[in-house]
């Protein structure tokens, strides 16, 4: 493929192509042609294609692009001596009937775009409130009439959310207990107060780290799984099928998942704390403390109200995580990509909600002196 520039005429620029104008040669030629055009800015551009042996879709695209650029500048482009078989390709592309777009594009200015964003935000909040309302109503119906729940599904969700999450919860709890005791050891040793590390870890695990870290694990595991599962059902029209059968999708899909999560989260938290204390004891025993000393100190440090405070927290965290996961599943739009988006949003929203709710708990517990 060769490409020559004939600029002998001031008004007219002639580009002479020869050889093959295909996907490989066009890749090399494209930028040179653009540069030449912008350098000369001719009134008349002549594309001499007499010596072209072969031209494919890429070649046609190059010719059309040069024509389009000249047309946009109200200048002329003459295609000279293109072989009929290649001209036929251009004609075929240009004369295909175009289907009118079904969706009309509406141009909008900044104020309209801001307005649209505000409307979307209000709509989103309103959707969430409606969802919470329906969820509360459907949960009440199930509580008053337990036959309304599909127990088979409920136990499946209990299994997914609880026992299957046990290994990761136990491992994380053990490591957190172990690491936090190790980290605290040097500071406490300076004051000869190593035994009080049990207070630190015991209170930390029951009041804050236990509920929060179990909730973070659930957000990654459970919220994402709920969103993906319900989202896939949405794009497979299974939720439409439920609606047209006259079955409320929230009762069928959301309520069992939330109830299962509420049932297992306190157990998961208990396991997390247990393994956290085990991890802490490993370090304490390395430092020379007996199990008896460890348990006595723990008993003195951690009160029932601390455990109950953590329990209330994890209960609410579980409700938020399962609710947010299911909500994002239900709000899934169309296509496989939408399921991915919902899953990500479910995890991100759950984590944000966790931080907010945890902040509210901190204030409430402070005021109530819990």
């Amino acid at each position, binding site marked *: 493929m060769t490409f020559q520039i004939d600029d002998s005429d001031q008004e007219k620029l002639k580009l002479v192509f020869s050889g093959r104008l295909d996907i490989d040669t066009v890749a090399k030629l494209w930028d040179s042609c653009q540069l030449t055009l912008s350098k000369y800015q001719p009134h008349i551009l002549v594309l001499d294609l007499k010596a072209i042996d072969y031209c494919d879709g890429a070649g046609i695209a190059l010719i059309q692009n040069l024509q389009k650029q000249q047309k946009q500048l109200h200048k002329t482009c003459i295609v000279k001596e293109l072989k009929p078989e290649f001209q036929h390709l251009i004609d075929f592309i240009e004369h295909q*009937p175009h289907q009118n777009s*079904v*969706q*009309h594009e*509406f141009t909008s200015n900044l104020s309209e775009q801001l307005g649209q964003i505000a409307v979307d935000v209000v709509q989103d909040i309103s959707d969430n409130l409606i969802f919470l309302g329906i969820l509360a109503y459907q949960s009440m119906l199930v509580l008053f009439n337990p036959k309304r729940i599909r127990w088979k599904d409920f136990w*499946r969700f209990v299994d997914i959310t609880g026992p299957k999450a046990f290994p990761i919860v136990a491992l994380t709890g053990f490591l957190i207990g172990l690491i936090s005791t190790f980290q605290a050891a040097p500071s406490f040793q300076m004051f000869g107060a190593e035994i009080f590390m049990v207070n630190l870890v015991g209170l930390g695990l029951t009041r804050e780290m236990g509920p929060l870290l179990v909730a973070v694990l659930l957000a990654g595991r459970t919220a994402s799984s709920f969103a993906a599962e319900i989202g*896939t*059902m949405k794009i*497979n*029209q*299974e939720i*439409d*099928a439920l*609606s*047209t*059968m*006259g*079955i409320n999708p929230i009762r*069928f899909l959301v309520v069992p998942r939330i109830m299962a999560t509420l049932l297992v989260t306190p157990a998961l938290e208990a396991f997390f704390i247990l393994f956290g204390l085990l991890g802490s004891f490993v370090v304490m025993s390395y430092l020379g403390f007996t199990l008896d000393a460890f348990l006595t100190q723990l008993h003195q440090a951690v009160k029932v109200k601390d455990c109950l405070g953590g329990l209330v927290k994890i209960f609410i965290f579980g409700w938020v995580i399962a609710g947010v996961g299911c909500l994002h599943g239900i709000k899934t739009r169309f296509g496989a990509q939408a399921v991915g988006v919902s899953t990500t949003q479910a995890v991100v929203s759950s984590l944000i909600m966790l931080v907010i709710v945890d902040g509210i708990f901190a204030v409430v517990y402070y005021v109530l002196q819990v």
Partner: protein
Amino acid sequence: MEHKFIIKITSLVAKYGKYTVLDKISFTVMPGEIFMIVGGSGCGKTTLLNHIVGLLPPDAGDIIIDGKSIVHAAERERLAILREVGVLYQSGALFGSMNLLQNVQFPLEELTNLPDQAIREIANNKLDMVGLSDFKDYMPAEVSGGMLKRAAIARAMALDPKILFLDEPSSGLDPIIAAELDKLIENLSQTLGITFVIVSHNLASIFKIATRVILLDQGKIVAIGSPQQLSGNADPFVRKFFNRELVT
């Protein structure tokens, strides 16, 4: 009160944002008919079906099913109307976590007080009707596209509805399986007297089983009648659609 029609749509308007998808659509469906809604891709067929089955609220107009308006019905009444209809979705929409038998049993378990044994019996019968009795333990992912559609029809028929809505039943099926499905629809219509409302653009099915057809274009009904009437219609678009010619 006797109603000559089983479905009556009056001046139905549906919009997506500022774009009008259905523009004052009106038609009636008679009991026992195999009524087909046809038209090019994106002309509003599925949107119309979603409105009739109450999945979307219309912007204007009314939809009467078996003498009751699904648009103005309170929740309890709406559920009662939905008991009279079954829907087959384009994808089949069978629940992936249940086998075929459990899928058919599902509406019976949820919406009736029948004992388990009766539910199993009815579900087995429905699967027999669509020729899937040997596949009742299979999961939806383990059966072919044609079997999936037939199982979905069995589920849609679980509560013995008066009307079955089918959204593109033959999409993604080879011509032989599609013809088998047509035969099944015809049999069910003749033996059980079910009214079928079918969204399709499969010309072979339209000519084979449809009693009456409406043709939609850009959200409006451009023709209504039997397939034979429409293929000889004077309107060039209608004629070309039914004779599979290019629209210029």
